[in-house]
């Protein structure tokens, strides 16, 4: 019999509604899984046992009363610890916010609660979502369930790992330059970054406001679509929230790719991408063609500058976004004789090295005399990247590429080389700059037994097409492997 913790959200939903299982059953399976995976993974910073149990009871009561708030009712879901949760500590993995309890729920969190979701707890991340491995967390590195000597990716490494290990049925993270798709690829799960503005950013601790998006982690494409539907929609609290209509994402997952125009991105299939990953991507492209897609090669010529542009834009925005962390109104304070000293000492002690690096980088890029050469130029390159995409979409419906240049790397392998670490996001960043939706779907394992992610990109608000293509990739990949940790507790 399948462990309930390994059910898909869609299947669990069917069984809940059929009365075969209860939400408490799901919660107990989840909390049992957490108990034996967590010592190896450290995916969570907080597990809200009491809150989750109460939510599971409430979901069961609702089912009993015939009330159905939607597909997430009664489903155990984990949240990246940069999403504000009222009454539950939210730290963004920073010493600065250790013990901070928000007095409010972010909009996505509020929607999940209203939808009857069982919020399991808060997952580990790179401090303020800056990193690609969770090694920048102030509260310890999370580990990859496929190999606990390796990183789960980042910054949403805890969310990715928890879903891969069955410690949550779904999770949410945030993606600024690949922080959902890259860890999803490294942990062998589906990870999706929606169109900028589709999910409210209110209550998401900001890294780079013009790039940040909340998105789901799941073990299937269908689950990812259901999770996204649970949080998407216009929000009066976010001026950049999308105001128009959009279709239901989970419809049309069975439509296949016949006639779909698919472009494989030339610049993301270069030598710098691990050859096994390139082969897997090429193989999937061929399978898509066999399934009836019209696969062509496309070029995004500016994309090789995207990483450079990103490492000016994101730090610039973060240098202002993180300025509010000053020890005045909340957070940890280092005492000093004057407020100015207090602020400077508090920030030096509260931020980790990567955060300091990026704040300094962004401050410099915005400062007088350098603005135009750095920040201004990066914004113009951003325009070129967008124009490249627009041109490619004139004759394609979706674009495909590897999600990451490597599979999961060993802990410590890149900590001394920021540029090498930054390169982890080379395939994912262009979609953030463009504001377009993008998804990573696991398509196989490399020779070391580590998952390989395959990325699909679509134009803004092209989520339906994106999910439709992703569902076909999922069928074609027949990726059924699970990390050992999730399969048997006896073996760990």
């Amino acid at each position, binding site marked *: 019999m399948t462990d309930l913790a390994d059910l898909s959200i869609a299947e669990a939903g069917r069984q809940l509604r059929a009365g075969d299982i209860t939400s408490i059953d799901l919660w107990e399976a989840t909390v049992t899984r957490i108990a034996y995976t967590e010592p190896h993974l450290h995916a969570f910073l907080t597990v809200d046992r009491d809150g989750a149990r109460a939510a599971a009871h409430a979901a069961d009561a609702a089912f009993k009363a015939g009330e159905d708030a939607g597909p997430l009712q009664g489903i155990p879901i984990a949240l990246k610890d*940069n*999403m*504000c949760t009222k009454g539950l500590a*939210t730290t*963004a993995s920073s010493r600065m*916010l250790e013990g*901070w309890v*928000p*007095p*409010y729920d*972010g909009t996505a969190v509020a929607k999940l609660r209203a939808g009857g979701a069982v919020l399991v707890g808060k997952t580990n991340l790179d401090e303020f979502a800056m990193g690609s491995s969770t090694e920048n967390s102030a509260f310890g590195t999370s580990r990859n369930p496929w190999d606990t000597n390796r990183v789960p990716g980042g910054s949403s490494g805890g969310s990715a790992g928890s879903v891969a290990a069955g410690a949550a049925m779904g999770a949410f993270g945030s993606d600024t330059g690949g922080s959902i798709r890259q860890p999803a690829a490294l942990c062998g799960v589906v990870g999706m970054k929606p169109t900028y503005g589709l999910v409210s*950013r*209110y*209550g*998401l*601790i*900001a890294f*780079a*406001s*013009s790039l940040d998006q909340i998105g789901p982690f799941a073990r299937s494409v269908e689950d990812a679509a259901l999770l996204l539907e649970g949080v998407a929609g216009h929000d*009066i*609290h*976010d*001026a*950049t929230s999308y105001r128009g209509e959009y279709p239901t994402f989970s419809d049309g997952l069975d439509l296949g790719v016949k006639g779909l125009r698919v472009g494989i991105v030339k610049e993301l299939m270069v030598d710098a991408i691990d050859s096994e990953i390139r082969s897997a991507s090429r193989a999937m492209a061929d399978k898509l063609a066999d399934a009836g897609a019209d696969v062509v090669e496309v070029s995004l010529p500016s994309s090789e500058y995207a990483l450079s542009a990103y490492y000016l834009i994101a730090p*610039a*925005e973060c*240098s*202002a976004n993180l*300025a*509010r*962390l*000053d020890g*005045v*109104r*909340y957070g940890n304070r280092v005492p000093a004789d004057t*407020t*100015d000293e207090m*602020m400077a000492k508090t920030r030096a002690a509260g931020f980790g090295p990567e955060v300091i690096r990026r704040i300094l980088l962004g*401050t410099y890029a*915005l*400062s*007088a005399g350098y*603005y135009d050469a750095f*920040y201004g130029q990066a914004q113009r390159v951003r325009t070129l990247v967008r124009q490249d995409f627009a041109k490619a979409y004139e004759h394609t419906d979706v674009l495909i590429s590897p999600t990451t240049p490597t599979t999961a790397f060993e802990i410590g392998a890149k900590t001394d080389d920021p540029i090498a670490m930054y390169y982890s996001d080379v395939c994912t960043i262009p979609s953030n700059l463009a504001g377009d939706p993008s998804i990573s779907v696991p398509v196989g394992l490399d020779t070391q037994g580590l998952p390989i992610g395959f990325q699909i990109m679509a134009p803004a608000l092209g989520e339906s097409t994106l999910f439709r293509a992703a569902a076909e990739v999922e069928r074609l990949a027949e990726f059924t492997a699970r990390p050992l940790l999730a399969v048997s507790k006896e073996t760990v």
Partner: protein
Amino acid sequence: MAEWEAVIGIETHVELQTKSKMFCGCAVAFGEAPNTNTCPVCLALPGAIPVPNEEAIEGIVKIGTALDSTINKDSLFYRKNYFYPDLPKNYQISQYTFPVCEFGKLDIMVDGEPFTVGITRVHMEEDTGKSRHVGEGGRIHDASHSLLDFNRSGVPLVEVVTEPDIRTAEQARAYGAELQRIVRTLGVSDARLEEGSMRFDANVSVRRGPDAEFGTRTETKNVNSLRSLQRAITFEIDRQIRVLEEGGEIIQETRHWNEGKGVTISMRIKEESEDYRYFQEPDMLPLEIDEEWQQRVKANQPELPAQKRARYVGLGTDTHTAELLADDPALGGLFDEAVGAGADAKQAGIWLTQEVVAYLRREEKTLSATALSAEHVAELATMVAAGDLSSTASKDVLNGVLAGEGTPREIAESRDLIQISDSGFLDTEVDAVIADNAGAFEKLVAGDMKMIGFFVGQVMKRTGGKADPRLVSEMVRTKVQG
């Protein structure tokens, strides 16, 4: 060598009296308990982001339109980055390039001379919180610690920046006063200087004559009345001239107006120019104030103070009365209604700005707390014009009306103040007096015009003071000529 000339530019911050703050739903309120009108957005809690208040944008468009500005169709918010404990985000959402309004002007009158002040820009931003310095008399440098209240944090703030067109402290004051009238007329702000909902910073420099290069300027802050604006600028001009004449140098710096001592004091010398690292606010979309929006604001613009003053003068008031009426919306409103109801404008203006204002001051009342209506003023004016009431008696009656004793006629009758202006009756009285005082009348006929007063006095005596003295005087003159 040419005479010294001052070059002055004024930056004015105006808090808009919207119901809620600029970027969140907290109430805009003055004088409430500390930190009771705050939320995640205006406390800058992690994760909170701003959404602009439409009414505040409407407010700045109103101000820009009243100042004859170009309203930019496309306008952007920026982050102005600097660390200060009263600024929760440690950046202020403001505007930089592409403010809402540019290239405006404001016409003012100084000593009867028209003068135009160019408006460089009018932009939208947010206010900071307030800090209180504790210990050692509350002075910032001697304080032991400070206390922060964020109720004001995020209140919509409009900054109006002038060109360096102003040359005298009097012009600066007149500009400040006129700007205050305008924002009050528009109903966008109560513009109370003493409460800080309107604040001036004065940039002052001096030079040798109008053709010389601009001198180094100082910026004077903490000016919280129109009078101190004028005093501070006067002080600063004199100080700079003195320094320069003594061979010294003016340092570019911020100075603080000390009201008690009547001096400006150096706050600090800017070591280097501030590096605010402005960049476009990514949490906000661009503003688009299209033609339709601009036209709607223009069409709904209330009568501005200058227009109102001109209209009042056109109706017959003198310039000073027109200013007083235009400055007080309650008085001005009553004036308009009274004139509409048929009152003589000149007479009504004088009553309202003199008798009524004196009464209100004496009784410490507002106009609306009195019984005075436009109909009363019109009735009173009609009675005076008809000669039923003397000018002197009209003031008594007016005070009675203000005190709620009744209508002007009721009061005039009950106080027995109605004048006799029945010419048939008065003619008989005049004849009787002339008959009784033939000697005096001869003197008058001989050309001693002083005797007119004697005859009028006699008639007044006979009628118990109720005759219309003007009419009697005219009658006596007619008799002399006859």
